[in-house]
């Protein structure tokens, strides 16, 4: 045993240590996945299956939750349902089996669209403003730069509800209440602090010599910025954009206080999904699943930049 391990450095953990560590970490990972797995499973259960005791692990999967999520339904007599023609799709069929007919689309898709518009709009603005400001802070001697950077960061420390009180009044005056534009501006202001801090770190890592070489060759500073620095910062910009997107996508406090109708995003809407006689948990689970999938994809794409993003660039590895 000793002879075998001398090949390794003394700091390499022993094989037993690795095995124990691996088992414990995998155990934690599996336990922490239970709630997410349960959301996913519930989204494919029928309403009675979802609230059965003991909780059902094996069940007949159905799309009822997804159908209920996207439609509103009305109860009808079985005579009326029989008088209708053949069902036009799987959702139609499922609904009729419950003695109901589809009355129209639900608000889920419009709310989801709002989430998309507001997340993309605010991300685009925050990253555009952020990359300019970050370049300014990175390359020029700005008077009071540290104070300004700290000021930019400190706007992140305010509790959202505290900010929401005057924003609510201001938006009411300006007619921005419950508008996508209002939410985009607000999320941009919140995200720009993250964007500036992260992008400054990324731009600091691009050697100044690149721009200087371009400028010696006749580029103006602006041209050098657009043609040399921006292409170099693509990875950083992409990572920053995803972080801003995730924030705007997940945000709830501002959304629930400042939007109520036309501009409402998905997070305040999902908890209000209700069915007949209590919460329709499969529909809630379906809405949650659809809402979470983009973030799962982003998390996997981002895993190398994650640390940097969540610490405002304070830890870079």
């Amino acid at each position, binding site marked *: 045993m000793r002879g075998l391990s001398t090949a390794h450095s003394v*700091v390499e953990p022993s094989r037993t240590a*690795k*095995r124990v560590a*691996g088992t*414990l*970490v995998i155990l*934690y*990972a599996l336990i*922490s996945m239970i709630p997410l797995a349960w959301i996913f499973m*519930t989204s494919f259960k029928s309403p009675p299956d979802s*609230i059965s*005791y003991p*909780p059902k692990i094996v069940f007949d999967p159905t799309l009822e939750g997804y159908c209920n999520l996207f439609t509103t339904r009305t109860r009808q007599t079985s005579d009326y349902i029989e008088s209708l023609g053949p069902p036009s799709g799987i959702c139609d069929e499922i609904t009729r089996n419950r003695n109901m007919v589809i009355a129209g689309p639900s608000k889920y898709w419009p709310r989801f669209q709002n989430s998309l518009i507001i997340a993309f709009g605010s991300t685009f603005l925050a990253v555009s*403003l952020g990359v300019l*400001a970050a370049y*300014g802070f990175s390359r*020029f001697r700005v008077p009071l730069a540290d104070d*300004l950077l700290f000021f*930019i960061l400190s706007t992140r420390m305010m*509790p*959202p*509800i*505290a*900010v*929401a009180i*005057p924003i609510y*009044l*201001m938006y*009411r005056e300006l007619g921005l209440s419950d508008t996508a534009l209002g939410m985009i*501006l607000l999320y*941009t*202001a919140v995200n720009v602090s993250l964007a500036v801090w992260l992008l400054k770190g990324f731009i600091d890592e691009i050697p100044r010599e690149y721009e200087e*070489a371009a400028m010696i*060759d006749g*580029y*103006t*500073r*602006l*041209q050098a910025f657009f*043609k*040399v620095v921006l292409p*170099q910062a693509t990875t950083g910009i992409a990572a920053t954009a995803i972080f801003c997107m*995730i924030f705007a996508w*997940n945000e*709830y*406090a501002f959304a*629930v206080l400042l939007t109520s109708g036309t501009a409402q995003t*998905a*997070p305040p809407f*999902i*908890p209000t999904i209700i069915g007949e006689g209590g*919460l329709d948990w499969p529909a*809630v689970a379906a809405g*949650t699943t659809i*809402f*979470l999938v983009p973030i*799962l994809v982003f998390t996997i794409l981002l*895993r190398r930049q994650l640390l940097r993003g*969540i*610490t405002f660039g304070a830890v870079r590895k």
Partner: protein
Amino acid sequence: MTDSNRNLIDRAALRAAHATPHGVARRVKGLSDRAIAWLFISPTIILLLAINIFPLIWAIQLSFTNYRANRPNAEVVNVGLRNYERILTDTDTWMAMQATAHFVFWTILLQTVIGFALAYLIDRKFRGHAFWTTLILIPMMLSPAVVGNFWRFLYQPQIGLFNYIVSFFTGIPPSSFEMLGSVTLAPWAIIIVDTWMWTPYVMLICLAGLRSIPDYIYEAAEVDRASPWRQFWSITVPMALPFIMLAVLFRGIENFKMFDMVNLLTGGGPGSITEVASITLKREAFEAWRTGQSSAFAIILFVAVFGLANIYVKALNRIKQR
């Protein structure tokens, strides 16, 4: 990467060479660095002034009045410091601060202990650790509101999975306790969800700390025959401490502001046992519509976060310098 850089520079040089006669002129015409610096930075500053600072000043001004947002036409009277006085002497405020402190203390303690332990285990570099690490990170990226909402389902007394699992292991009947409805359990219900979501965050920062410790220090300790226990407490913990403290700072600020997850899980209830500061603020501002008074509370909260964070950062810097 470097090749494409070089290509880029070559192309830039080539293009510039073609444009030399204009190039010089353009450079003279181009904006000065100072102008560009301000041109680049000012949009961000203006946006933050408009959406963060102006409202903050407005809130400060409102905090000295009896303004109510649901009665915009009522006469606004300047009440001086009475709002502040009322809030600081109100028992509800102190109840909320206590609930917040309980929540912040336990979430940070649990997340730091579990997060550090996980990071330490992952740093043993067992096979497949990268995959499992990514899996562990998922909960913290999700929307606390949307996921918090779903935990209400897991916490249902009869049908909920959480109660079922607890009863499976302890034999306590699943309908005999209500995580969200009981005064003793509800504070722990929100702590459990927050810990589930944010332990990965602390773990990730701790992992960076552990990986920043150079191997040669452990090698030297090994030569000196320091026991693993001694190595852990004299090398691992002190060297990872700045990272742990950074994680605590970020979690502390975030949880002091906590609103979304708690609002959906308990809404501050039962009674007001889980009514953390942000929930009280929301009730005062958007349900009772005491805008002036709640502005004063908001200012107090902001000053508290800002002050505590500043003191903490100073302590952190002192530890880093050691």
